[in-house]
């Protein structure tokens, strides 16, 4: 990192980038310098502002302040097309592929001027695939490809357009470890051919394995840029988390010996015919206990939650307070006292266009105070919504405001308040503080801790390792649909947990 000032070795330089959204600062004086033909990692916690920064570099959003230099020239992008013209390409976390079109069609779409859409294009794709070590048949339908191949199609799309800087947004989130290795091989190949890679991640072991430089972003600001050869995962984690963030501190145990939720040999086949989504998952949660599930996303956590909620039908048994509820409907499970904070609150937890008081009823529409016989108890629901808004500090003009208008944190507080009401015996909390502000995060942690003291059994799924360690009494590690180990949150560090999640080793 000595010669970054020389323009001929600098691929991209971002200076003092700032970006605000209403009520939110996403980026504030961000400075990043990326050397040519290197893999530059951008790390930070969820919501630290990494993705916003990259969308600015790719022309999806315009910065409020700051400058962008590409190859030493200052540029201003008003759309992705401008960025592409400047040689920058981006692979989104959620693939942008048309399933029913072939690899060739997906690659040439929008860039037909380069080599047409016929044989010349096919030759060019073969050529690119060969030189970068990709194994792709241009005439296969994308829907027949696995996740790793799809990602290669995305990268190929970018290369086909002549990009020499590629942004990869959380590329490993959807990959299993072997695929991650293949991806890293591809990235090394790209680097060897002179391509610059910007790699966004919050997984430290991966970053240390592949990156030449690492820039840490925290709460919208660049903390520093470090050399991974002289940095440990522990140091990186400290830089990422900082010291000013509230930390979920462990309290004295309230675990009893009464089992509230018991999952036994739960298995779930893949409806698409792939590897089983869940295999023989067994665990118990006691009254007053928080059980955490750690794992790289996409290893079966979402499916586990949906199976416990009765939204997916698997084999094995689920027991609630000693009763076998395996055959019950979702509604009956909820009535029996399972509270549910879903992972994607906008899709699964809220009716965005309905007022708050109707959202308070969602999932609780069959119970008091929302119901009187076959009818809705509007009065009951409304006054109880007022109670939740006050007790859980949901900041809203009124309970007639639509859920869509609230910020993520306030939406989440409403959901937490709703799921805590009606005397739940078990709470399933899936990423309860994802994408919420720091204040709401601390409040939600407090609510969960209070409920635990009062005897609630909690299943906590989170990608935030500090959250898991701080709140849980027991942590199970999940990998490829199986529970592969159990760790004690009292003694484990985020780094140990992180490596256990990738299947490396399970600390006792």
């Amino acid at each position, binding site marked *: 990192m000595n010669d970054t000032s020389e323009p001929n070795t600098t691929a991209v330089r971002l200076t003092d980038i700032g970006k605000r959204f*209403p009520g939110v600062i996403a980026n504030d004086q961000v400075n990043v310098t990326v050397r040519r033909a290197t893999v530059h990692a951008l790390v930070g916690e969820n919501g630290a502002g990494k993705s916003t920064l990259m969308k600015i570099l790719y022309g999806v959003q315009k910065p409020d302040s700051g400058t962008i230099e590409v190859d030493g020239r200052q540029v201003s992008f008003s759309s992705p097309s401008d960025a592409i013209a400047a040689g920058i390409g981006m692979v989104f976390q959620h693939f942008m592929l048309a399933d029913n079109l072939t690899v060739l069609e997906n690659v040439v779409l929008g860039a037909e001027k380069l080599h047409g859409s016929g044989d010349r294009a096919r030759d060019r794709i073969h050529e690119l695939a060969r030189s970068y070590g990709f194994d792709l048949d241009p005439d296969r339908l994308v829907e027949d490809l696995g996740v790793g191949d799809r990602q290669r199609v995305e990268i190929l799309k970018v290369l086909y357009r002549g990009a020499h800087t590629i942004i990869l947004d959380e590329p490993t989130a959807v990959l299993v470890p072997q695929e991650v290795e293949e991806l890293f091989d591809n990235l090394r190949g790209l680097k060897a051919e002179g391509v610059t890679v910007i790699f966004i991640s919050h997984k430290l072991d991966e970053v240390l394995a592949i990156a030449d430089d690492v820039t840490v972003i925290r709460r*919208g600001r660049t903390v520093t840029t470090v050399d991974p050869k002289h940095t440990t995962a522990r140091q990186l984690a400290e830089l990422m988390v900082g010291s000013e963030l509230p930390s979920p501190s462990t309290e004295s145990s309230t675990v009893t010996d009464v089992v509230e939720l018991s999952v036994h040999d739960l298995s779930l086949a893949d409806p698409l015919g792939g590897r089983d989504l869940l295999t023989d998952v067994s665990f118990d949660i006691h009254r007053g206990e928080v059980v955490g599930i750690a794992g790289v996303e996409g290893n079966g956590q979402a499916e586990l939650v949906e199976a416990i*909620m009765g939204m997916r039908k698997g084999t094995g048994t689920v027991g609630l307070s000693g009763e076998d509820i395996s055959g019950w409907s979702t509604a*009956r499970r909820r009535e029996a006292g399972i509270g549910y904070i879903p992972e994607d609150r906008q899709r699964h937890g809220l009716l*965005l266009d309905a007022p708050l008081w*109707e959202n308070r009823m969602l999932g609780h*529409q069959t119970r008091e105070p929302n119901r009187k016989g076959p009818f*809705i108890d*509007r009065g009951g629901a409304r006054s109880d919504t007022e109670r939740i808004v006050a007790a859980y500090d949901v900041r809203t003009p009124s309970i007639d405001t639509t859920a869509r208008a609230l910020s993520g944190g306030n939406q989440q507080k409403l959901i937490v308040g709703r799921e805590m009401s009606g005397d739940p015996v078990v709470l399933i909390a899936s990423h309860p503080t994802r994408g919420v502000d720091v204040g709401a995060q601390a409040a939600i942690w407090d609510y969960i801790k209070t409920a635990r003291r009062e005897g609630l059994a909690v299943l906590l799924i989170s990608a935030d390792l500090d959250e898991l360690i701080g709140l849980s009494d027991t942590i199970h590690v999940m990998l490829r649909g199986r529970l592969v180990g159990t760790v004690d949150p009292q003694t484990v560090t985020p780094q140990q947990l992180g490596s256990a999640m990738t299947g490396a080793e399970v600390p006792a």
Partner: protein
Amino acid sequence: MRFDARRAVLTLAAPLLAIVVAIIVTSLVLAIAGDPVGTVWSTIFSKPKPRNVVNILNQGTVLYLSALAAAVGFRMNLFNIGVDGQYRLAAFVAAYVAGEAWLPGKLNVLFSILVAVAVGALWAGIAGLLKVTRGVSEVISTIMLNSIATALVAYFLRQVAQKGSNNIHTTDIPLSSQLQGFSLIPNAPNNVYTLSVLAVLAGIFFWVMLNRTVFGFNLRATGQSESAAVASGVNVRKMVVVSMLISGGIAGLIGMPLLFGDAHNYGLTFQTGLGFAGILVALLGRNHPVGIAFAALLFAFLNEQSNALQLKAGVSNDIVNIMLGVIVLSVVIAYELVRRYNNAAEQRKVAAQLAASRQPEEVAA
């Protein structure tokens, strides 16, 4: 519910704007065609005679029922395009049953209405079942079922029709089962259908069911977000079938006021096309029971008043169909724009309030 003045104004502004746009477009069409624009509007907006008022009410009644049937589906994002086939099949079977007069007098009426509801519900239920068991889009299946219903009715009508008569129709309903109607409007030679009460009852049923029952909540939740409804414990498959049954059942009612109050049999002249008109009325009335009532009366008013156009202005009354279509298209566009505007406005409002209260700043991904 607290009254929100801005929202209310916007809600009303959309349909009014749509009517204004429709008047402008229609005037343009008339002007280009060289028809007398002024006379057309003065004819349409003249004070209806008592006889016409009754016609408007009667026509409004059937349109209202038809729109309700469509609205049940719309509220859960289910497009029952098949109301047309459902009501014709139901009216035919009910007319046959009523004509056979297995029960005396008013009991015959009641029984026939129940039969109509059952037939409508079953016919719609086919589409519901095909959707949940085979994944067949209800839009396509109900369109196909419409045409199949047409063929079935045509065939069976010929089977049961009075032989040797010119106008093919089912046996007339016995006098004791014919309903004379209410003479609501003074000086009108004709009566308002007795079974207009069906529309009132169905409207109340629809409103209570949708807004006051758990079932209605589930239905609306499914319409707004299927994924959230599933997570909240709603059995969406069941909801699809049940709402198709309810929609079809209400569709079965559409022909009843006509059958017992006017036609007294089902024949080739029985009013058709009510199902498609009902879809438009439902859209104009925003699938709300009160809104639909206004929309149905507006449709009926324009239809009835346009009958005099040929005589007074020398203009074909078909112009009114253009107008109705334009009203509906502009109103759905207006609703869509208002919806987007409202969302943005409310988000800004809440954000401003939060900024004022200096909440810790949130960092977005």
